């Protein structure tokens, strides 16, 4: 198992290398660079900046050098933990990215928890009450959840919070809390801002998971070992919970693993709409201003996150299913 993990982690390195090259090319694609974009922005807001300054700045940050030199400057810093310098924030990229990644992880993790906590019981209910009113109603709600994109849900939630409920929504913390030291009230406020994006992100995946759980359990309940369990004299509830759910939940791990990229992906847009500090808002800004190291590092780290999530999912599957053995 450890050997398998080791090999998987080693295998990530070449992929990450290619990813870094592709990322670098992508962030270099837009015409111009940070300084020309900045110059245009300043010009549009009525200010002026002469060509000289732009050229000087470009020279200072090496933006006038050939692409491969720039790429090398970026990549060679990786082992030292140097992922470049954000020109817009006047700070090394890494702490900015890490802070946002950490928040994304929290939202994503919470969203996964929500997904499992909601989808599995619903799936079990639907399967054990197949074709009942409840089953049909839950399936319909599930389909609705699948059909509403995250940003619309986020928009609806903001609307509901601001206009109807008149409660503060969006952001990382309430304005009044932002400057206070950490105490219980602040933690609660923090959590209060954390769950809405998590739930919104989780909804579509929940719907998907619920459908798959229902199907799996229905499949499993038709299998022979379920009859064996019944013939033993177990209560139907015990049969479903011990044998049915146990076997039906396994494939769910792979499905969840497939939902993680969607959650991470969606978190960018939901983050932007709800102005919560996921990677989204900053990545968006960085792309607009062509703050290329920041944008590139964001992409790189999100890709890394997905790879790690995939690995963890495979591990979880091996742990959960006695039939799978990695060597």
């Amino acid at each position, binding site marked *: 198992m450890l050997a398998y993990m080791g090999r998987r982690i080693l295998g990530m390195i070449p992929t990450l290398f290619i*990813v870094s090259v592709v990322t670098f090319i992508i962030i270099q694609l837009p015409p111009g660079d940070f300084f020309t974009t900045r110059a245009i922005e300043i010009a549009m807001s009525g200010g002026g900046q002469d060509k000289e300054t732009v050229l000087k700045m470009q020279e200072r940050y090496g933006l006038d050098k050939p692409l491969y030199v720039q790429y090398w400057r970026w990549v060679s810093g990786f082992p030292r933990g140097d992922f470049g310098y954000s020109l817009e924030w006047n700070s090394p990229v890494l702490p900015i990215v890490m802070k946002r990644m950490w928040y994304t992880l929290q939202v994503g993790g919470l969203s996964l928890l929500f997904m499992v906590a909601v989808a599995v019981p619903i799936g079990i209910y639907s399967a054990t009450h197949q074709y009942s009113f409840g089953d049909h109603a839950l399936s319909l709600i599930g389909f609705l959840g*699948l059909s*509403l*994109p995250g940003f619309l849900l986020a928009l609806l939630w903001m609307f509901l919070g601001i206009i109807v409920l008149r409660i503060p929504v969006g952001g990382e913390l309430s304005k009044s809390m932002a400057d206070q030291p950490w105490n219980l009230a602040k933690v609660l406020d923090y959590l209060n801002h954390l769950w809405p994006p998590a739930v919104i992100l989780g909804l579509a995946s929940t719907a998907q998971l619920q459908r798959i759980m229902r199907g799996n359990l229905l499949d499993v309940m038709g299998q022979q070992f379920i009859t064996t369990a019944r013939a033993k004299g177990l209560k139907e509830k015990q049969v479903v919970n011990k044998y049915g759910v146990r076997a039906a939940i396994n494939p769910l791990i792979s499905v969840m693993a497939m939902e993680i990229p969607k959650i991470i992906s969606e978190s960018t847009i939901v983050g932007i709409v709800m102005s919560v500090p996921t990677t989204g808002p900053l990545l*968006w800004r960085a792309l607009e201003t062509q703050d290329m190291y920041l944008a590139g590092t964001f992409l790189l780290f999100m*890709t890394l996150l997905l790879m790690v999530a995939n690995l963890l999912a495979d591990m979880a599957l091996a742990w959960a299913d006695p039939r799978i053995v990695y060597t």
Partner: protein
Amino acid sequence: MSDTTNKSAELFRLYEELSDASADLESEESVDQKALDAIFAASQWQLMWRKFKRNKVAIVGGIVVALYYLLALLAGFVAPYTLEARFVQYIHMPPQRIHIFYAGKLQPYVCDVELTVDENLRKHYAPNCDRRFPLQFFAHGESYKLLGLIDTDVHLFLTSDGIVSLLGTDRQGRDMFSRILYGSQVSLTIGLLGVMLSLILGSVLGVVSGYYGGWIDDLMQRLIELVRSFPSIPLWMALSAAVPPHWPPLRTYFAITVILSLIGWTWLARQLRGKVLSLRHEDFVLAAKMTGATDAWVIFRHLIPATLSHIIVVSTLSMPSMILAETSLSFLGLGLRPPVTSWGVLLKEVQNIQSIALYPWVFAPALAIALLILAFNFLGDGLRDAADPYTV
């Protein structure tokens, strides 16, 4: 005792005779067999259709999807106004009610509205049914190109005076109903085009990968893994940001389509590869190879048709995400930009929460999207069930 023994022996003898005469029997049986064969020979498509028909929800989904595309096709005709027609005197007007009967006669009309501005400078429109605008059907209005070809100015319905606005107007006094219809042309075709591009890439690469196996397959799998290791929306964002803002609308449109299909094809390729891997050793493929068919012949004449039902299901299922991706990107201002108008572009204007509160009807494109995606999901789900031969 001896009686039953004799009976038993007699029965054995009867069977003996029967098997001697089995030749006759077979010919008799073949009649039944023919009837059975007819069932088994019902083509895969007939079986699919038979099963699909039973799923009422999927049928409804299919009809809704078809209606959307029909409306998009005839947008110019159904929409009373063109995309940019402005009614400065009717800014942010709420949806109008259509009155069907007037004085007991079938005479649909809409009422004019009275504008008042309160102390907070908020506009209020109140219907004023003293001034009525009867609806005229197949009336002449602004000219447009029907189906993009025929110059005409006939609209499904219009009023001779004032405005008819089923879904209200936006901040520039443009009719939301007309704009959503025109927006659907872009949103629906970008989904279709995107899926088609993914389809071409995905099916060719997937089938080739599954058919040849070996290092080609390995290479393809690594490539797919690489593409899939990127988070899709951030990647789309980064790529769309690279589309120069000064590009003409059509080129932007195609660029966004290409960007969207860059990730979509991997899923399709994976699915098809699996399918082809299992088909590769089927008799009909071996037979074709044995008779000297070229690889291209086998792929295009046998493998792709054999996986066609699968392709259709997979592409229907990937339509929603394609449409949503465009909408999301345009909503962020990274996808399409005005003057190209898609649903995402329409929604970009309601990013401001206050505007949803004051003028909820500008949120209408969201409903249009949700309904379409729902319909697509139902349709795709039904098709998937129908195409799966192992379930009843």
